[in-house]
């Protein structure tokens, strides 16, 4: 069935619309949002007792297309190395779900969606959303799919925050959680990098207070935001390996044209990003990241006290955007609150991107962890 050999093959995106007025979704801010559409994909089959469902979450710029190929598209989903037959999230055994987050721009309701009150895109009339709001919307999708309890929730970076939030918000509905390369609360440094990205977007005159739909979008600003992001996703070592101080081919010689390979790469990444991503979504989602504080002002171990899920926390040594100490803080709070947690700090030179690229070792941990949770193995505390 697959044109790529061992992958899932051709997949498609589905859509679920709910929270139609007057039953709108009540957001953490108290504002209401509805109707809400979530774009989602599923891989594998739900078993008879509906006990094999795994919800995976994408990061800032990801989408519902986590694995397999869309018709006519050569590029696989963003976690194709981890999801598929015989892979870590084994679709021969498990039913894997991924949805685009609320506030996104890949088929789920976000600032580019039509505001039912005006008939025009929301723009900045879109309410501020949080990671908890994303998770609450996903819970409606899981309800719709007829799943009471998830075998596992998993994701890297912002996806890891959603995994943690699921374990805390829906303790009875999650058997295990795998937060990877993530944090329980955004640090000032993380907020600072996001703010540079937001300022780049808002400094682009085309941004126009967020009301650019139908006109020229703020592509320069969004591209710069993406460039900053990409720097933080890599490591000194991975940049040196990938680019060195090499010059690009066909440098024209004009002053301050990008001539180093790394400059060309960042420009290419930025220019590609604006073709698929909405600048306002970038503002809303980065703000949701910055607001993220699982403890919500309280101590993390108190918030984790009711969590019954087993956790597998994974960090990468070269990740300086979400440094390993943030993962160790999660594990430390788990230990203090009696939550069953396993921690592994993987050696990788890829920096933050490692959660997308290091599929061998990360995959080994994920595969065995889920298999043991699924079979009810492990110690008496589980």
């Amino acid at each position, binding site marked *: 069935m697959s044109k790529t050999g061992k992958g899932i093959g051709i997949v498609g995106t589905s859509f679920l619309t709910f929270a139609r007025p007057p039953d709108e979704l009540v957001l953490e801010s108290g504002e209401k949002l509805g109707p809400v559409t979530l774009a989602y994909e599923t891989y594998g089959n739900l078993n008879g007792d509906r006990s094999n469902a795994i919800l995976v979450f994408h990061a800032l710029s990801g989408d519902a297309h986590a694995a397999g190929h869309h018709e006519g598209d050569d590029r696989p989903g963003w976690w194709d190395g981890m999801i598929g037959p015989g892979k870590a999230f084994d679709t021969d055994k498990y039913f894997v779900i991924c949805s685009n987050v609320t506030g996104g721009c890949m088929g789920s309701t976000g600032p580019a969606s039509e505001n039912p009150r005006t008939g025009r895109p929301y723009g900045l009339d879109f309410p501020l959303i949080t990671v908890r709001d994303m998770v609450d919307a996903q819970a409606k999708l899981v309800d719709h799919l007829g799943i009471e309890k998830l075998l596992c929730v998993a994701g890297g970076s912002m996806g890891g925050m959603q995994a943690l939030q699921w374990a805390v918000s829906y303790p009875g509905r999650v058997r295990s959680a795998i937060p990877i390369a993530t944090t329980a609360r955004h640090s000032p440094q993380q907020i600072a990098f996001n703010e540079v990205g937001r300022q780049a977007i808002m400094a682009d005159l085309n941004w126009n207070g967020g009301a650019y739909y139908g006109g020229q979008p703020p592509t320069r600003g969004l591209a710069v935001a993406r460039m900053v992001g990409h720097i933080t996703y890599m490591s000194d070592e991975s940049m040196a390996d990938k680019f060195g101080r090499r010059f690009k081919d066909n440098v024209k010689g004009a002053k301050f044209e990008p001539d180093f390979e790394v400059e060309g790469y960042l420009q290419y990444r930025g220019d590609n990003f604006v073709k698929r991503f909405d600048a306002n979504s970038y503002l809303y989602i980065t703000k949701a990241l910055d607001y993220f504080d699982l403890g919500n002002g309280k101590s993390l171990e108190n918030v984790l006290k009711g969590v019954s899920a087993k956790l597998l926390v994974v960090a990468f040594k070269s990740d300086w955007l979400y440094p390993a100490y943030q993962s160790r803080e999660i594990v*430390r709070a788990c230990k203090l609150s009696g939550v069953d947690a396993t921690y592994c700090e993987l050696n990788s030179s890829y920096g933050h991107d490692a959660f997308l690229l290091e599929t061998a070792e990360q995959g080994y941990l994920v595969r065995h962890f889920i298999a043991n949770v699924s079979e009810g193995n492990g110690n008496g505390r589980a």
Partner: protein
Amino acid sequence: MNNGNTAEGRLDHRIITGWVSEGATVLELGCGGGELLQMLSRQKQASVSGIDVDENYIFSCVARGLSVAHQDIDDGLSEYASGAFDFVIINQCLQELRKPHVALSEAMRVGHKVIVGFPNFAHYNARVQLALKGRAPVTPALPYQWYDTPNLHFLSIRDFVLYCRKNRLSIERSAFLHKSGLVRFWPNLLAGSALFQVSREDPALIE
């Protein structure tokens, strides 16, 4: 972590499993691939977790379904509450730590009882090599050359007994091993390794 020869490794695991009570909560520092923890989980229905600094051991523990934390014992155990475990086990890794006294104190804080296993540096074989040959000893329990040993500290059974006396730890059980058997006489001379179960003499001293 070195467990000496495999026969001895299995014996020390069997002895420790015999000492741990049914359904106990156990933390093993330097848990390696998790063989002992799995034995305790299966045979004693113990609620087990481990710590190790080696990534490959973490993979092995996760494959066994064990809860394990990838960390350095020398960084302390501050994430564990005082008295959180019935047993803390430090088997065959005490001599490899930079700060064994800190590790033992922390183990005594988080565990009600601590089981310690270590190679005996005063085994007669080691004494002979040192005294007669003038060589740093290489024995079945201490199988390394001076230049490639992971061991940073060398202690004897008598050293450990004196340590317990000085730090007001009461020795509740002990076993002395050599190769695949138990040693009953002159352990400090004849045993390649030792196991002790200790607790605080005065529980009121626990902070």
